[in-house]
């Protein structure tokens, strides 16, 4: 009897998880199907849409890689992503360290102030920033994105890293300074290596957020060859009014899955930044 109710509870748990997993992942399964389906099969309303009624094909992938700017979108995304990571690290790491270590009262306040700027959304900033971009002659240039994306990476990453630095005991730097390092040396040569997991989190976060970004890219860039994946795939793989569903789904799938894998691995830490960060 006892075993039976345990079994039922297990079954219930797996059913529940199955339903959630289905709901969350179905659009991506749907992309997989469309990626490998022949157009004739894809566009026959009577065919079972969940199965391959005709043999699968690589035609859409070929179209995506040879007849569209998809590879260019990926390259642009990578360029912007790495540049934003570099700018974010160069500004957020030192600021977070100083705020966490040397500035007690006002440091805490300033830290919270910096975090709050994260809540000022792109939907308010994109109009004035589009004027900035045209004032500096950066329209249609990846530089405009590189300049603007740190508006959402710096505030959050500084806050996240403050939390990391607070967990590293002070004695470690003090010992290093007694051993003859300067304050700056103790920071760069002793503390930063210890904070490597926090720094890695920031790298992943800055890169994925740059890749996800949509509004600024949509506003600043309209030349196809300069687009990033997040706007290039939804706006360019349409001929006139006709969506090229096969290549479109292939592009969405290929650009989504790797970044999703890495992001999932770090997700807990980001969310800890949101909440514990706000809590501590």
């Amino acid at each position, binding site marked *: 009897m006892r075993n039976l109710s345990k079994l039922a509870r297990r079954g219930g748990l797996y059913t529940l998880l199955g339903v959630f997993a289905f709901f*969350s992942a179905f659009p991506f399964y749907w992309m997989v199907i469309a990626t490998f389906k022949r157009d004739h099969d894809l566009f026959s309303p009577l065919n079972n849409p969940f199965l391959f009624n005709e043999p699968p094909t690589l035609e859409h992938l070929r179209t995506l890689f040879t007849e569209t700017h998809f590879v260019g979108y990926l390259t642009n995304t990578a360029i912007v992503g790495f540049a934003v990571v570099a700018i974010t690290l160069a500004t957020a790491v030192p600021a977070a*360290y100083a705020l966490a270590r040397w500035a007690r009262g006002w440091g805490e306040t300033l830290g919270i102030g910096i975090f709050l*700027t994260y809540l000022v959304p792109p939907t308010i900033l994109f109009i004035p920033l589009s004027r900035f971009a045209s004032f500096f002659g950066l329209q249609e240039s990846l530089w405009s994105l590189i300049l603007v994306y740190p*508006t959402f990476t710096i505030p959050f990453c500084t806050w996240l890293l403050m939390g990391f630095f607070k967990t590293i005991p002070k004695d470690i730097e003090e010992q290093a300074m007694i051993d003859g390092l300067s*304050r700056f040396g103790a920071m760069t040569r002793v503390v930063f290596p210890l904070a490597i997991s926090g720094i890695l989190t920031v790298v992943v976060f800055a890169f994925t957020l740059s890749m996800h970004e*949509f509004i600024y890219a949509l506003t600043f860039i309209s030349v196809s060859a300069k687009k990033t994946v997040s706007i290039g795939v939804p706006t360019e793989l349409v001929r006139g009014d006709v969506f090229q569903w096969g290549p479109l789904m292939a592009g969405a799938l290929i650009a989504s899955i790797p970044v999703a894998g890495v992001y*999932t691995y770090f997700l807990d830490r980001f969310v800890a930044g949101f909440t514990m960060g706000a809590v501590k």
Partner: protein
Amino acid sequence: MTSPVPPADTGGGRGGIFDRRETLAKLLIAPAVLYIVAMIGAPFVLAILYSMSNATTGDPSLHLVGLRNFAAALDDPVFRIALRNTVVFTLLSQSIVIVLSRVLANALMKPFRGKGIVRFLVMLPWTAPISLGTIGWLWMYDSIFSPIDWVMRYLGALGTATGILGPQTNLYWLGVPGLAMASVILVNVWRILPLATVIQLGGLSSIPKDLIEAAEVDGASPWRRTLMITIPLTLPIVSIAFLFGIVFTFTDLVVVYVLTRGGPVHATQVLSSWTFFKGIEAGDLAQGAAISLFMFPVLAMAAVFILRLARRTEVV
């Protein structure tokens, strides 16, 4: 500034710039603060100035005209629809998210096989770029090839004279006003659910185990344990999940832009999409800025609540 200076600062002959604490601190903080002031602070002020001017993309010079743009926005029926839609869209989707995320978080707390893969799958909507995930939904909502419609037809609910959903062969998910709104809300629930779930997981795992065990020993039923311990203790973190959900939903442009562009006939127009169409596509910077600033009071309130809750959680 009045913090006591440790001995290392005064002792010895090392007084270089890399050794003085306050100076070094300011030097290290300056780049981040300067960037934020220049790229968030200044544009924010400029948005306020634009909202009180008659600037357009053709003539972006600033001539202040007072609060005329806000009055014009309030008089515009489309703005009023967008405002109402934004509130409905945000509150409805976040209420659903908060319930579902609680259920999902509870399930994920239990030990089971294949946790890694389940986690990857349920987190996909948040971890994959949102514009690309939404494109998948656009294809699922297709007016002819929607798989949902196909299943309905297969079950006989659609496309037959006796079907409960009507004799037509398709539902036109994004083509009918009420259904379009429901479709947009569903995608937004899908999108925010993982974030809310991870926040809730953090809350659930922070409840001390012995508290629950003690209640169990005292004979409290599972329902009572939930009501008296789990809910009160996780309320602050649930509220934080709710508030962040609101901030992200309220300001989101992607889902509406990719799925409907605000259509059909503004039925899914929200403040952020209306800002974009007015301010960028129609080139009316002043109107666009005014519309976007209507979002600010809500965001400011959310920020105040987040801070308060954060303080309270610390006390618990």
